[in-house]
C-alpha cells in the first residue's frame, strides 16, 4: 500500500477486500479441486495479478492526479463491489477452508505456537526481505523509487511511469493473494471481512509514514504487539482497542509517523 501511494498517490481502500477475494478464491479452489490453500496460492496469485492489472488500467489509472477524495470514493466503491460480488457467489455464511496444517501445533520449550501462524510469519518475513532487496538492487526497484522521488525526472530518463504504476499495483495485489492464503487456515471467512484488513493495513502504513519501508515494518510490529499484549494482559475487547490507542498517541506526538529526517 505504501509503494502504491508512493508511485501514484493512490490509497487503495479495497485493499482488504482483495485479500478477502483471495481467500474466497482459495475456498472455491478447495471446493472444486480439493486444493490446500498453500497449494492453490500458485493459481490465485497470477489470477489476482491479472485482475489487478485490469482494475488498475481501466478503473484507477484514469483517476490518478485527480482529487484524493475521489480516489478514495472509487476504491471504496470497488470495495463494495468486491464484497457484494463475493456475497452473490458464495453466500453469506461464514465458511472454513480446511488445510493440512490447520490444527498442528509447534512446541518450542514452553511456548506453544500454531503452525499456520508460524508459516505466515516466516513467509511474510521472507517476502518483506525479498521486496526490500528488489527495491534496492534491481532496475525495476530503482525505477519504482525514482518515480516516487520525482516522476518527472524519472520520465526524462526514459522510465515508463505508467507501466511502473500498473506493475506496482499488480505486485501489490499478488502479495495480497499470498497474504490471503497465509491468513486462511484456521479462520472462518465471510464476505464482509475485507474492511477489517483494510483498516489494520491503513493503521500500519500511516504509522510508518506512508512510504517509509522500515517505518512500515516497525509500524506492523507496533500494531501487532500492542494487539497481542493488549488481549493477554487486558480483557479481549480492551485488547483489540490497544492498537488504535497506541496509533492515536503516536500520531499526536509525531504526526509524520515512524520516519526520521533522512526520509520524507
Amino acid at each position, binding site marked *: 500500500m505504501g509503494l502504491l501511494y508512493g508511485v501514484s498517490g493512490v490509497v487503495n481502500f479495497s485493499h482488504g477486500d482483495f485479500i478477502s477475494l483471495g481467500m474466497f478464491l482459495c475456498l472455491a479452489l478447495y471446493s472444486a479441486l480439493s486444493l490446500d490453500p498453500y497449494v492453490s496460492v500458485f493459481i490465485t496469485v497470477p489470477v489476482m495479478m491479472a485482475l489487478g492489472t485490469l482494475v488498475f488500467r481501466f478503473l484507477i489509472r484514469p483517476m490518478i492526479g485527480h482529487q484524493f477524495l475521489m480516489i478514495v470514493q472509487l476504491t471504496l466503491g470497488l470495495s463494495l463491489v468486491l464484497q457484494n460480488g463475493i456475497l452473490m457467489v458464495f453466500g453469506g455464511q461464514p465458511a472454513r477452508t480446511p488445510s493440512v496444517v490447520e490444527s498442528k501445533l509447534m512446541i518450542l520449550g514452553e511456548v506453544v505456537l500454531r503452525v499456520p501462524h508460524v508459516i505466515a510469519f516466516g513467509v511474510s518475513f521472507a517476502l518483506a526481505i525479498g521486496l526490500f532487496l528488489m527495491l534496492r538492487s534491481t532496475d525495476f526497484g*530503482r525505477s519504482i523509487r525514482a518515480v516516487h522521488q520525482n516522476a518527472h525526472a524519472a520520465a526524462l*530518463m526514459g522510465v515508463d511511469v505508467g507501466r511502473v504504476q500498473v506493475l506496482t499495483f499488480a505486485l501489490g495485489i499478488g502479495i495480497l493473494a499470498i497474504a490471503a492464503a497465509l491468513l486462511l487456515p484456521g479462520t472462518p471467512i465471510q464476505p464482509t471481512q475485507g474492511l477489517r484488513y483494510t483498516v489494520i493495513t491503513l493503521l500500519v502504513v500511516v504509522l510508518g509514514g506512508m512510504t517509509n519501508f522500515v517505518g512500515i515494518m516497525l509500524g506492523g510490529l507496533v500494531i501487532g504487539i500492542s494487539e497481542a499484549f493488549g488481549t493477554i494482559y487486558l480483557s479481549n475487547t480492551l485488547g483489540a482497542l490497544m492498537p488504535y490507542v497506541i496509533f492515536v498517541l503516536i500520531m499526536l506526538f509525531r504526526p509524520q509517523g515512524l520516519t526520521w529526517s533522512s526520509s520524507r
Partner: protein
Amino acid sequence: MLEIENLVAGYGGVEVLRDVSVKLSAGEIVGLLGANNAGKTTLINALSGMVAPMSGRILFEGRDVTRLTPRQRVELGIVQVPEGRLVFPEMSVRENLQLGGINARAKPNRSRQMEAVFDLFPRLKERLSQDAGTLSGGEQQMLAIGRGLMAEAKLLMLDEPSLGLSPLFIKYIFDIVDRLQAEGLTILLVEQNLMLTLRHAERCYVLERGQVAIEGPSDVIQDDPRTRSAYLGL
C-alpha cells in the same frame, strides 16, 4: 539532425510556444536564450515528449518523432538534463547514474558509460555511495549531466546548467560542455546567462513570448541591439 517546424505548444490549452521553428545540425552547440517565461523550458519539454504539441512537427535524424512518448525519445538519444537538476535525492550517486542508463539502448553499456562519466567528473566517483540530496549544487549538476550521459545521448539538452552555481563551477561545467561537443555530442543549451551562452554556442535562437525573435551566429547576435531588449522583456 533536429528540425522543429512551426511548433505550437502549451499547457492546459494555453499556448506558450507559437509557431517556433528551430534547426540543429549534428555536432553543434546551439543556444536557446530568452527571458523568463519566454518558452525555453516548454520547448525542451516538447522535445522530450513531456508536452504534447498542439500543432507542428519535430523531426530527429530525419524521422518524425512528434507523437513519440518520452521513453521512446530517450531511446532515440534525445536526452534532457532538467532545470534545477532534479536528481533523485534519496538515491545514491551510483543509483542515480544507473537510472540514467536504464533505457534499453544504454543498458548493456552501463559499466563502460559509468567509467566514462567518472573520467569526466572524478568528484562523482569519490561520492559514489552518498545520497544525491546531500550533494552540493555543483556536484548535483555534475550528477545530472552524468546521468544524461549515461543514457547514451545523441542530442543533449541542458536546461539552465549554470543556475545557482559559483563562477568556478560554472567555468568547470562549461569546459565539460565544450569537451563533450569536441567528442561529437550535439548540444542544445538553454540558458539565461547571455554572455556565457554566446561564448560557448556557435549559433543561438532568442525566444520572446513564445516566438523566435532573433536567430543567427553568436557574434552577430551579440551585437544586435534587439537581443538586449528581447532579454529584458522590453
